């Protein structure tokens, strides 16, 4: 492979991985927060 502009190519690849990783991470964090809320609400339901 011709290595001219390799820095730009490397930056683009890092950007692609970073965008998807950060997005996936934020969705996972939001899911964890809602699951915690859900567990809290369930704990308020009186047991018969």
């Amino acid at each position, binding site marked *: 492979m011709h290595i001219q502009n390799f820095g730009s190519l490397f930056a683009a690849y890092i950007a692609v991985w970073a965008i998807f990783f950060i997005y996936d991470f934020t969705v996972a964090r939001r899911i964890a927060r809602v699951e915690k809320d859900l567990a809290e*609400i369930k704990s308020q339901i009186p047991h018969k």
Partner: protein
Amino acid sequence: MKRYGIFALILTVLMFFAGYAALFIAPDEATMHAIQRIFYFHASSGWAAMEASMIVFFANVAYLAKRDLKWDWLAISAVEVSVAFWTVMLVTGPIWAHPVWGVWWTWDWRLTLTLVIWILYLCYMVLRTLIADPERRAVFSAVFGIFVFLGVPLDYLSIRIWRTQHPQPVIFGGQNSGLDPTMAKVFFYCSGVMTLLMILLVVKRYRLERLRHDAEELRLAVEEASESAGMSRNL
């Protein structure tokens, strides 16, 4: 969720191989050399972004036809994921353009329409947070989403209709266009991987929306139950 984890792991391996194929299997382009290899992720992200936008459109139409909130959940999930893919396009494009064109950005049809779609989908996400009633929010989102989608086919066709600074199409571009067979194989492989990634992210984001709905329903049920319990004690 375990099945999702296995699928995500397989997809990560496929993505690493896509990176390897784009860097080492695809042949060197004669004039641009290494920087042309951005194309394999830039263009395939563009395809995935447009596919996600199509999901948004169909979900919006389905909501207006059936008034089932599940379609609204699918629409917002696909909007968010499409924004991630449009962002990849808007970030990798200028990184490629700077060494090739000598400028980071130019206001040609393809670039401008892509930026406009990205901004409008961001508005879609922000404006939804201002409407509390789920039905009203879904109707507003569906109408707005259909309006935004009008720009997507125009964005796809822009490099075919107008003479743009953006390179002319090499896939489905008609006569005098095309790719080296190995380049085409790598490109279609990368596009397939990006499409799978898009589907995986939409599934995950949809789960978040369903959980939010479940939590809200349960919260209302608990509030109602405690209110009625309080009333019966007073009687």
